[in-house]
């Protein structure tokens, strides 16, 4: 079974065009993913809404904006040329020429996966936010701004622009936590600002170091990330990027914000933070350390593996010892991030490919576990695991979705996390055996934590003293099913479904085929005998 999964996850060697691709194209496709949500957010923020009269309309606008965005991204995904190592959909306009800043956007395979992830998470977050009743207009405007900033950070191909969008993502998300969070939202908001601010500062200093080390003429990633730097500079930049990534993903010991944010933020915000915004951390490591600084990556690889092991282990143990279901989900959401980083630390083509797929699958899995637990706590009117018990018969939809989330975190077959974790571990056991073993051990503890969680709240004896319980609403079911469906689809068809009897893709070129574009180049310093 394992072998068949690996074979299924192997990229198709020859690209075949997808029927229906080419129905839409725009030279500003990536700009559209950034500026369309910004424009809608600006329009929403000035739209009159006396006494909440147009609350429903505002929610519909946010939903259809995301739907439109997902459509655009799906078209981009379909038209994406697999196996082409260069950036695609590039846009390049001089911005601040005097300091060498260019409005340079572009995506490769991993970037395309991140964009699709962001699109799915965006629509899920809007559906998860349909229950918002207070200050609806600013809520959805801020949500769209956060989404735009995340998209900007994904497609940025200039370090200056990356810093701008990376930093900009924290502001709307912090305001969303402050304004619409639970009783401890102030603590959560300040922690988010503190940790993400530290990460942004580290990224800014790292970007400036790269800029200075490459002659101070350009921030373009084609210049600063392709230059040959001294090992000392590479180490300095690598350490700064690890700090930036660790605050965002998060990695132990810079994970201090995730428990409070996931426990206190509104569900839609938790989904965005854990699903897309936090994945930027691993994406940054892939771009700026693994792909650009091979010497530093070789030296820092064991450190990354250790951080991954500590993150997975800590997340699993903390989840075992916590009795607040939303805090448990926060700790469990740390696990996919650790697995992703282990793949990066492996510094092998298979490990890197696994970690790229894990970016997508781990993002969906983390969002699913956080969303499912938060929805259960709302529907069961309690967050305490001492109160919640025997809920499966009374909330069957949520029970199934929580089980799917648990299986996704563990990486069981037919879910997208399975090929991702398999490739990661196959890649990592060769080059980082101790780290890989420790992560596997952490996953085993995580399995115990998940089993305990499921047994307690779903299959334990019903608690007669617990408050009333109801199953998920249509919107809640849809957003969780969307996340679970994404995991299932990629798990079953990692290479995309084909028209029977042919090699022609049906409508999906296949996630592993798309992500292959760019991975070969990223992994090129780590192939061959000299890399070992």
């Amino acid at each position, binding site marked *: 079974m394992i072998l068949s999964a690996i074979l299924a996850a192997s990229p198709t060697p020859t690209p075949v065009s997808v029927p229906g691709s080419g129905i839409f194209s725009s030279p500003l496709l990536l700009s559209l993913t950034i500026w369309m949500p910004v424009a809608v957010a600006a329009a929403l*923020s*000035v739209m009159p809404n006396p006494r909440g009269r147009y609350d429903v309309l505002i929610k519909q606008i946010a939903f259809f904006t995301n739907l439109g965005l997902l459509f655009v991204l799906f078209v981009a995904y379909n038209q994406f040329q697999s196996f082409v190592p260069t950036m695609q959909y590039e846009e390049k306009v*001089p*911005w*601040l*020429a*005097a*300091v*060498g800043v260019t409005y340079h956007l572009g995506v490769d395979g991993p970037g395309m996966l991140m964009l699709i992830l962001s699109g799915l998470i965006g629509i899920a977050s809007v559906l998860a936010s349909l229950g918002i009743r207070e*200050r609806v207009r*600013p809520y959805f405007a801020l949500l769209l701004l956060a989404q735009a900033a995340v998209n900007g950070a994904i497609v940025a191909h200039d370090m*200056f622009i990356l*810093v*701008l*969008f990376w*930093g*900009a993502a*924290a*502001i709307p998300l*912090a*305001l969303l936590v*402050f*304004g619409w969070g639970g009783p401890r939202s102030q603590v959560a*908001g*300040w922690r988010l*600002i*503190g940790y993400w*601010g*530290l990460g*942004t*500062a*580290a990224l*800014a*200093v790292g970007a*400036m*170091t790269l*800029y*200075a080390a490459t002659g*101070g003429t350009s*921030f373009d990633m084609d210049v600063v990330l392709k230059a040959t730097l001294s090992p000392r500079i590479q180490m300095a930049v690598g350490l700064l990027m690890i700090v930036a990534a660790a605050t965002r993903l998060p990695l132990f010991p810079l994970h201090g914000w995730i428990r409070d944010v996931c426990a206190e933020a509104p569900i839609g915000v938790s989904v965005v933070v854990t699903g897309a915004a936090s994945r930027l951390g691993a994406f940054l490591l892939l771009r700026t350390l693994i792909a650009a600084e091979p010497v530093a990556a070789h030296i820092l690889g064991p450190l990354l593996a250790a951080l991954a092991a500590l993150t997975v282990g800590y997340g699993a143990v903390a989840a075992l010892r916590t009795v607040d279901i939303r805090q448990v989900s926060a700790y469990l959401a740390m696990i996919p991030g650790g697995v992703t980083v282990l793949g990066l630390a492996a510094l092998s083509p298979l490990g890197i490919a696994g970690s790229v797929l894990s970016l997508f699958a781990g993002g969906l899995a983390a969002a699913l576990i956080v969303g499912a637990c938060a929805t259960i706590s709302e529907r069961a009117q309690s967050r305490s695991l001492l109160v919640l018990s025997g809920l499966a018969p009374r909330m069957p939809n949520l029970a199934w979705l929580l089980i799917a989330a648990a299986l996704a975190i563990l990486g069981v077959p037919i879910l997208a996390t399975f090929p991702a974790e398999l490739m990661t571990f196959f890649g990592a056991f060769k080059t980082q055996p101790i780290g890989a073993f420790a992560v596997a051990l952490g996953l085993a503890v995580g399995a115990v934590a998940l089993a305990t969680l499921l047994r307690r709240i779903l299959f334990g004896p019903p608690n007669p003293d617990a408050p009333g319980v109801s199953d998920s609403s249509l919107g809640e079911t849809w957003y969780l099913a969307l996340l679970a469906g994404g995991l299932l689809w990629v798990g079953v068809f990692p290479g995309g479904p084909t028209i029977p009897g042919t090699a022609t893709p049906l409508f999906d070129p296949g996630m592993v085929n798309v992500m292959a574009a760019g991975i070969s180049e990223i992994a090129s310093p780590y192939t061959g005998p000299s890399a070992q």
Partner: protein
Amino acid sequence: MRNAVLVPDALIVAAAVLALLAGRFSWLSASSRRRLPALAAAVAVVAFGLELWVGATLSTYFGGALVQDRFALFAKAAVLLAAALAIATADWTTEDSIPIGVAMPLLAAFGVMVAASAGDLVALWAGLELAAAAGVVMVSLRRPDLALRSLLAGGLASALLLMGIAYLYATTGNQDIAAIRAVLLGSAPSVALAIPVVLLLSGLAMRASLVPFQVAGLPAGLGASPLGSGLAVGLIAAGAVIVAIKLGAALLPISAVYSPYLEVLAAIAMVGGGAAALAVRAPRTRLAYLAAGQVGWLVAGLVTHYRTGVGASLFLLGAFVVAATCGPAVLGRAEGGEAAIAGLGALRPARAAALALAMLSLAGAPPLAGAFGELAVAAALAQSGHFALLALGALGWILGIAAALGTLRTIYLQSPLEEGRRGASAALPLLTRLSSMGAVALCFVIVAYGLLGNPIMGLADQGAQALGLR
């Protein structure tokens, strides 16, 4: 065409003097008096347009006392835009006198314009003093006690500047800025040169209310009306920075004398400004400390001594002067502390947005004007190898962002005060067509400054080049 370059300056002075005379001799009816701010803002906008149109002509006036170059063009345009927006956004019901309130920002702007185009040390000093005097007048209208304090602190700053200028003149035998540089090219850094430079920089730091020199000047500035606070926090500080940039260019050959001092000043201002902004809750004080932190970034750009760094500082100066001058003006009375602006987003959306953007820009939040400027300065710091200063700047930046978000939370996420509990100190700004238009224009400028930054940055770079920097 050559003399047309002076038309913006003349327009501003004429408008200020006419406003003062009209107020003194009661030439205006009550309704005309109410239109005075709109008229003054229009004059400032026309002067701004003229400056951009005719200011590109390179020329010298009054025997070299005034020099029109790209540096002067950039600085004058930024100051005129800030003055126009501040007058337009101010809540004139909270100002103590409309004619004086209109005239003083224009006079302060004129003072800074003189300093920006100064060709010698006297013009530099005179321009800065004129701007500072306008600030003292604004304070004295509301708080004569604080005005006296401000006058004393200003006197000390002025004395330091004058002593520094005198020493510099005695050492170099010149008061012409270009000539001083030419003389210093052959000199080695010495104690005799270090004394005047340190005196000059200390005087300028006091004028700019730079942390830790804010002790005397800043509280006095904050005691003024909203527009008066804007002058103290924004225009006068910008004037001091402009003087520092020009002096820095002249003293470049002996930069070793003052670089460590500037680095320490910049570091303290960046971190101290951010920390102080986080520690206080009152929005006007927080805004002032955020501005002080951004002045630290401006000074950090000067530490590099390169065209890139000074160009980045100049680019940031444009963002700073607009946000710092207009921020207090758009904030309005708000003397009742943080509660005064609670829920402002729902009650006065345009003003709230302008205030939020001004705060975020001063904190350096991306992707607004201040962030572009601070990142450009950061790039210059990295390029010149000042990584410690860059790291401290990043620390100050985090603190500043946290502080600005705290105020944003109050504006947008807290419930407004009940009308019965809203005293005079927390009165809502009056809605007028001018102030609403001003607030919208301010939002546009802060957002567009970075997004359309290429020509502005190019002009700032040319400005730095005009100072003879490489």
